[in-house]
């Protein structure tokens, strides 16, 4: 009976992990579910085997199945069904049917230096030239943000969305998808120099370390001026209420 309890407990947690996928269309990635389940099953196993009696009780049915002479019929049945099940799983394709998952670094390390507009930027020390105006002259800052907004709605919202949530018209056709600027996962974690580099160089300028890093993000160095890029960055942070990382 302890074996049943063990199976049910594990199943319960498994269903819990699957729930966001069933009910909400936000599945927890299967790679993570298997990692979680691995440790959940182990923990349940540990708890149930602290004492010798517990361990014996847990494994008793399995031991009985293998050793008990009176269970001959069940034993033979199990030893036929198990290999057949394995054959079926293998034939059916099992895990192979799913498209392979990808390990991709969305935020790979930037190069120390990057070139653009005929000069070299040192990303370690680069700062947004307009950022200091935020305190010095809030009014002027506002109009800079507004100009940044114009840049955004002329160039970026097709992909990044009019709410900056990464859901623009084109977004659904792209892979990897345009990133949202809202929420705490993207620009909120980045320094402005990093964002500057990403806009300047786009998908083509990504370093190779992040796996296949081709993305549809255009390189903007030919289309926008340096000032325009800094302004649109102001807009991205201002609109989403995020603050750039400063360390």
């Amino acid at each position, binding site marked *: 009976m302890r074996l049943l309890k063990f199976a049910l407990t594990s199943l319960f947690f498994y269903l819990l992990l699957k729930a966001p996928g069933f009910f909400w269309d936000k599945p927890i990635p299967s790679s993570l579910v298997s990692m979680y389940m691995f*440790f959940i099953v182990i923990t349940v196993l540990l708890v149930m085997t602290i*004492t010798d009696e517990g361990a014996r009780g847990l494994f008793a049915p399995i031991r009985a199945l293998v050793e008990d002479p009176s269970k001959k019929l069940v034993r033979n049945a199990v030893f036929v069904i198990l290999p057949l099940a394995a054959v079926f799983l293998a034939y059916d394709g099992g895990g192979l049917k799913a498209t392979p998952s990808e390990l991709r670094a969305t935020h790979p390390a930037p190069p120390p230096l990057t070139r653009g507009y005929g000069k070299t930027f040192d990303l370690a020390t680069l700062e947004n030239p307009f950022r200091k105006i935020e305190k010095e002259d809030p009014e002027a800052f506002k109009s800079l943000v507004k100009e940044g907004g114009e840049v955004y709605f002329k160039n970026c919202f097709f992909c990044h969305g009019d709410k900056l949530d990464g859901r623009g018209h084109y977004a659904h056709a792209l892979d990897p998808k345009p990133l949202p600027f809202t929420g705490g*996962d993207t620009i909120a974690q980045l320094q402005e120099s990093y964002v500057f580099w990403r806009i300047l160089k786009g998908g083509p300028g990504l370093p190779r370390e992040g796996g296949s890093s081709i993305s549809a993000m255009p390189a903007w160095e030919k289309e926008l001026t340096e000032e325009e890029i800094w302004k649109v960055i102001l807009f991205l942070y201002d609109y989403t209420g995020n603050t750039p990382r400063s360390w």
Partner: protein
Amino acid sequence: MKPRFKSILSLTALAALQLLFVLPYFFSGALAAEATGAFGPAPVLAAGDYPKVTGVNPRMFVWMAAQMHLWFAAFVLAVPIFVLLLEVVGVIRKEKRYDKVAYEFLRVSLTAYSITAITGGLLLVGLIVFYPDLMKYLSSIFGSTMLLYALFFFVESAALYLYYYGWKPMSSGGLKWAHIGVGLLLNASGTTLMFIANAWVTFMMTPAGVDMAGVFDGNIWHAVRNHLWGPMNLHRFIANIAYGGSIVAAYAAYRFLGASGDKEKAHYDWMGYTANLVAIGALLPLPFAGYWLTAEIYAYSQQMGITLMGGLFAWLFIIQAVLIGALFLAANYYLWCGFKRGVNGERYLKYVRYLAFVIAATFLVWFTPHTLILTPEEASSLGGQYHPLLGPLGLMPAKNIAVNIMLLFTFLSFLLYRRSHRTPTVKWARAGNAMEAALFTAAIANIIFLGVYYGYFTNSVYKVASSVPQVATTLFVIAACLVIEYLMHRNSETAELKWGRVPDRSQYALFLIAVSFTWLMGLMGFVRSAIRQHWHVYSVMRDNSPDAFTPSIAYAAKTVSVGTIIFMAIVAFIFWLSHMGREGEADE
């Protein structure tokens, strides 16, 4: 010839050999500096400057030799710390068993000591054969410290032999204290050795005392005291204690499982418990030393910092989190299994499931990655790399909450364990319990509040800053509860612990802890060294050998895993050997 003299001789020969290798480099470097009156820039190398030996991959050779050397060195540095501690405790408590265990362990480490010297020699040969110009450059700067290193190596060897062979003859009266003095000398010289070697390694990562071209300013102290030297010294020192504890515990587990009588079983059970306690105790402050190290890396070069934490190497930190979590789970399991050593243990068994639940839950939060591995279908239904529920769990604040709660609950397991054989008799026992419960509740509330509020609702700067009060809360509760426990259990009814009364299963937890430690050291050591990327000496001397690329994580993980297996096999062999040789002698 007596075997002990043979081994002393062979070791001395080895040390001399190492010295012989270093000396010409030292003098050529020093002479060159003398001749020109100043130090030259770091050499600019081409692929042709790296000697080739058919059939040998230079990087792999040096990597493996360095890794093996480091593991054995950590082992032989840690064990004497441990042994000395036990010896002193034994003298203070006047209990023979501490002395016995200490001596037994020193014996085991003796074989490891010569293997350390051998792997060190291999590493040196590898470096000199495959990277001669790098070695020339480094020894032109560090030559004097290399001599010092050799000197301390001799001192350490001498102290070790005196310490070991003097154990029985110097076991009483003032001589015992002299013996402890020798132990102190042994530890001091061992630790100095490590500090010196750390200076070379950290110089390669965060060079100081040289200009952009690598021209040395002539002051050795500048080069030694580079950015990472301090944090690396601290981190490695603490980690060594934890590591030593875990290896000793694994040894005890090995002997426990093979023990023939109840008396032997009890002895090794006790040894395993004590060693494990030291290991876990030393593990607790380790993350903070790690934070310091990381912060210094960021401070030196943001580029290096992002490579470390933000890029692909971040995945090795996930693996690190998984292994450390597994380590804590194993340590807790070991404690829970030990409840039965005490007469009252039975009554705490029912709480185990709740403890396990909390620890497992925090553990899962702890290793939840920020950037997920997704199939394209999953990516399109999530609309990006981040999950709305899991995204926040992937960030630092959630992990800080998780790890602090995990520490607190591990501590709770420990408290329950201690109560398995004591019943407080003081009048205020109830109030004392209530006080501890209140402390725990308040601490958890505070940790969660600090984490959630500062972590998700304020600017990034506070995010890091909030981890300090969180840790302070945890440490405070641990200290306060220990004091309350101490007062509450004075004159309590203490039943003798029934050592040896644990299931065999629990011993495998000790093995797991030792293996996890070893693996962790290898993996994170790889990251530490790989963030230099294509530099021998970061930003000063470029690595232009054919191997100057960052291998894939899979490749690195496989290499380290194979290394771990080899190392563990050798350690198992050493355990077996030390046991073998003693079979005939009566164990007093």
